[in-house]
């Protein structure tokens, strides 16, 4: 029962959704939308599960005074403050007001903490791109050299410097201007490679979906035999 019921449900839902693509007749035409909404509802309930697990993990850590328990205090505190501020729309002029509207506590805390924190984490990429490029772009083989040259062209092409360096090239050689080369590299060989990968991915997804719908792939269900 533990695996056969989920497999049966997967088969029914999967087959219905595939058929719904080709059948405009109701209810098939709205199946996709309904299932998306149902999944969103399930995901909402799952938030409770996640929030509960979060609190359990960190409160246990605090209670046992495990290593770095002080960070858990910050985590639990932040979680509860934002939850209360958002749920009860603290600071909002009326109950209908958007929970993240201008005057709400949620918005103020969001702007003061979440926005700079997210921007900081994202900005790490700038530093990591540099260290990764330094380590990875070595001309060890012909292909690696080609990649290295393409990277340099694109790095310059995505800045005004690329145009400045090669704007003097005459019209017949305009395709060698860094900005044009950069656009060509992105739009032709890069795109061809990405399309090929996407075709492979799409086929992989079809194959995985068939295995899931037919119940051939069941390790995500726990993999055990029926009771």
């Amino acid at each position, binding site marked *: 029962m533990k695996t056969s019921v989920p497999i049966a449900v997967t088969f029914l839902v999967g087959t219905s959704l595939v058929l719904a693509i080709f059948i405009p007749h109701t209810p098939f035409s709205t199946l*996709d*939308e309904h299932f*998306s*909404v149902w999944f*969103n509802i399930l995901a909402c309930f799952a938030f409770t599960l996640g929030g509960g697990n979060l609190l359990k993990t960190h409160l246990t850590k605090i209670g046992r005074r495990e290593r770095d328990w002080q960070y858990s205090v910050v985590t639990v505190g932040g979680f509860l403050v934002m939850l209360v501020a958002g749920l009860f729309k603290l600071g909002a002029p009326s109950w*209908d*007001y*958007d929970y*993240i*509207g*201008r005057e709400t506590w949620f*918005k103020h805390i*969001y*702007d003061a903490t*979440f*926005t*700079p924190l*997210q*921007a900081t*984490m*994202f900005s790490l990429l*700038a*530093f990591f*791109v*540099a*260290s990764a*490029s*330094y*380590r990875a*772009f*070595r*001309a*060890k083989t012909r292909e690696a050299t080609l990649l*290295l040259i393409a*990277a*340099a062209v694109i*790095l*310059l092409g*995505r*800045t*005004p*410097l690329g*145009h*400045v360096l090669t704007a003097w090239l005459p019209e017949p050689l305009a395709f060698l201007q860094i*900005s044009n080369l950069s*656009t060509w590299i*992105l*739009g032709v060989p*890069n*795109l061809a490679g*990405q*399309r090929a990968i996407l075709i492979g991915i799409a086929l992989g997804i079809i194959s995985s979906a068939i295995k899931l719908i037919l119940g051939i792939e069941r390790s995500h269900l726990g993999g055990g035999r029926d009771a």
Partner: protein
Amino acid sequence: MSAPLHQRLARVDRRLIFLAIGLSVALPLILNLRLAVRPTPIVTKIFDKIESLPPGSRVLFSFDYGPSTMPENQPMAEATLRHALAKECRVYLMTIWETGPPQIVRAIDEVVKKDFPERVYGRDHIYLGFKAGQQGAINALLADFKGLFTTDANGAEINSFEIMQGVESIRNFDLIVAIGSGLPGVKEWIQFGGDPGNVPVAAGVTAVEAPLLYPYYPRQLLGLMGGLQGAAEYETALIAKYPHYETQSSQAIVMMGPQTVAHVVIILFIVLGNVAYFLERRARKKEGR
């Protein structure tokens, strides 16, 4: 005895690299290094489209990004919004990202309230808010716009607004401007909104997403602003036509200086790494002899 030069070059402490990048971004900002940006056709197509819209045209803006990509996406969002309002278009602001609403509020504060204070909410512009459902939401907007947006973001009944008269579907819009940084985003707007609804879609995305959207240009995608460079190109085109917006619409142009210097520094480190590699190879060959 210190290590040979090639070993020292090959193993530069990553903290030095981080410091160099930090300085390469900070110094041009402090010194206000500005570089001239040249708009490319893929961006000017968006500019020309908005420029050609008659007053009263309906433009749907979807701000599908969060604070992390704000430095790239916000300048392009504000520049296109400013342009649409300058052309007296009716603008509809929405998002299918949970972190989109603060970006819309920021754009309203920086663009609508500062540059167009005479515009009336509900007649010239409306803030519809966030809708969950990803591409399902776009599908629903195509079928029944007011069925999904029954109120605006502040809970007011949607039919109480003059701007919503005649809006039944995405098909009633003259242009969709989708500013995004991931999933769901521009691709979903093209596949589920613009293409089936036969509405032109103009896009602005982060630099890393841009190559994935080239297949859609120019048929299904009117134009594309890719990363900070794309945003700077749009701002340049806007300022060329409307010079009085130079102060407000230069965020991306200002950032092109640091971006350029940072890219050059990365290239220098790549060259350094390769010099080290070739010196090391030569040293190994000598030892091998």
